[in-house]
C-alpha cells in the first residue's frame, strides 16, 4: 500500500508487480511457476486417459516433418510478401476518389473478413483457380493465403494511414509536397511505425492459417503430420511435434512484435 517499494518484504516483491518496475528474478520465477502449473495440468490429463507413448514409429517419418515444416515456411514467406503488397494496394485503392475502386476494395475486404478461410480455400481452389487454369496447387495456395491475409493487412495499413494527424497532411500541403510525395515522405514513414506491430501479429496468424491449406492436399506441415499419424496409428506423437514446429516459427515473431510495440513510441 503505502510502503515504499524497497522496504517491502521480499515475498511481496516476488509475487506482486511493483509500481516502479518488477525485478527480473520475480518475473523469471513466476513465469517458470506458471509454466510448471500448466504442464502439470496436461500431465494430469494424460495420466487420466492412460496415454501410452510410442515415439518409435513416428521417428521413422521424421524427414516428413522436416519437409512439411520447410514447405510451410516457404508458403508463409511467399504469402507474407504477396499479402503485404495486396494489403498496401488495397488500402490505397480504398482511399481512392475513383468510386468504383473504392467500393471494389471495400467489398473485397468485407467478403474476405466475413467468411471462414476454409470456405475461401475451397471456393478459390475449385472454382477460381480452375477457371484461371492454375495447375500448381502451391501457387493457388499462396494466392489464397495472400488474398486472405491481404484483406486484414489492408485494414491495418488503412488505420495506420488514417492515424496520421490531419495537421501533418496540412504541413505537407503547405510546403508544397504533391500527393505522391506526401505519401512517400510524410505518411508512409510515420505509418510504418504504427503498422509494424499489428503487421507482425498478422504474420503470426498467416503462418498458423497456412495449416488449413492441407484441405487441398498441399503437402505442408499439417498435412504431413496427418499422414504420419495415419501411417503409424500414433496420436500425440504426431501432433505434439506439429505444435512445437509452429511455435518455433510463431513465438519469435510474437516476441518481436512486443518489442516493436515498445520501441516505436515517440512523442509527436
Amino acid at each position: 500500500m503505502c510502503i515504499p517499494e524497497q522496504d517491502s518484504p521480499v515475498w511481496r516483491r516476488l509475487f506482486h508487480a511493483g509500481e516502479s518496475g518488477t525485478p527480473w528474478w520475480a518475473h523469471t520465477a513466476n513465469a517458470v511457476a506458471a509454466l510448471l502449473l500448466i504442464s502439470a495440468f496436461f500431465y494430469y490429463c494424460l495420466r487420466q486417459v492412460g496415454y501410452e507413448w510410442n515415439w518409435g514409429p513416428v521417428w521413422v517419418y521424421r524427414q516428413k516433418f522436416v519437409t512439411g515444416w520447410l514447405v510451410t515456411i516457404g508458403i508463409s514467406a511467399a504469402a507474407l510478401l504477396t499479402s503485404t503488397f495486396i494489403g498496401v494496394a488495397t488500402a490505397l485503392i480504398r482511399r481512392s476518389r475513383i468510386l468504383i475502386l473504392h467500393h471494389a476494395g471495400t467489398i473485397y475486404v468485407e467478403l474476405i473478413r466475413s467468411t471462414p478461410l476454409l470456405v475461401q480455400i475451397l471456393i478459390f481452389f475449385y472454382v477460381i483457380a480452375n477457371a484461371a487454369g492454375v495447375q500448381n496447387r502451391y501457387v493457388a495456395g499462396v494466392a489464397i493465403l495472400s488474398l486472405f491475409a491481404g484483406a486484414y493487412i489492408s485494414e491495418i495499413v488503412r488505420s495506420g494511414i488514417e492515424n496520421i494527424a490531419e495537421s501533418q497532411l496540412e504541413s505537407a500541403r503547405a510546403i508544397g509536397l504533391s500527393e505522391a510525395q506526401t505519401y512517400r515522405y510524410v505518411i508512409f514513414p510515420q505509418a510504418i511505425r504504427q503498422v509494424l506491430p499489428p503487421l507482425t501479429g498478422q504474420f503470426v496468424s498467416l503462418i498458423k492459417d497456412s495449416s488449413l491449406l492441407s484441405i487441398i492436399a498441399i503437402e505442408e506441415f499439417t498435412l504431413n503430420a496427418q499422414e504420419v499419424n495415419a501411417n503409424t496409428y500414433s496420436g500425440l506423437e504426431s501432433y505434439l511435434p506439429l505444435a512445437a514446429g509452429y511455435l518455433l516459427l510463431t513465438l519469435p515473431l510474437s516476441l518481436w512484435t512486443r518489442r516493436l510495440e515498445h520501441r516505436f513510441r515517440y512523442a509527436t
Partner: protein
Amino acid sequence: MQLEIQGLTKRYDGVTVLDEISLEVNDVHCLVFVGPSGGGKTTLLRILAGLERPEAGHVRINGEGLAFDEARLRDHRRQVGTVFQSFNLFPHLSAVENVTLPLVKVHGVAPGVAHDAARELLERFGLGDHMEKKPGQLSGGQRQRVAIVRAVAVKPKVLLFDEPTSALDPEMTAEVLEMIGELRAEGRDLVLVTHQLAFARSVSDHAVFLANGKILDSGPAEDVFGNPGNPASRRFMERVLRFG
C-alpha cells in the same frame, strides 16, 4: 508587399466565415490580422496560404492573382512560407531534415546545398545544437522556431503565421516572437494572425480587425491599435490590451 483582396467570401457548410471582404494595402512589410476567435482571420490567412478555396472573390499578392485550382494553388504554396499554431514539424525527421525536405523535394535544391543552407539558418536562430534532434526531443518554442526556419529556408515571397504562439507557454512565446521580430527587421514580408496584441502593435505597419467575417477596421497599426475608429474593435482592444 502589396495585397489586394476583392469581395472574398468563404463558407463552411453554409456558415459564412468571410463575408465579401475587400482590402487593399500597398508597401506594407508586416500585416497583422486581429480580432475575436471565429472572426475569420485564420480563414483569410489560409486563403492567402493557398490552403483554402473561397466561394467568391479575388486575391492579388504583389500584383499576381491567385488562381484557385489545385495545380496552381500548389505552385502558390511553394512560393509562400506558412507556419501554423502547432504540430508543424514531421516527427519522424530531425530538425535539419525537416528544413531540407521542402528544399530538396519541392524546390529541387541539391541535398548538400540544402543541408548547408539549413544549418546556416538553424545556427543563426540559435538552433545549431538541436539540428539532429527529432521534434519530440525539442521544446515547444524550439519546435516552432524550426518550423519558422523551414518556412524561411525556401525564400518565400511572403511569410504567413497562423497564431504561431497560441500553443506555447509565455517563455516560449517570447522566444518565438523575438524570432518573428528579427525576420521583420531583416525586411521580410510577413502576414501574421495573432492574439498577442502588444506584439502585433510593435511589429506591424498595417493592422486589420476582423469580426464576424467582416473587416471592421483597417489602417496603420498605430491607428487601429491606438485609436480604434470602430466601436466593436475599440471594445475588443480595450478588453484585450487591459489584460494582455
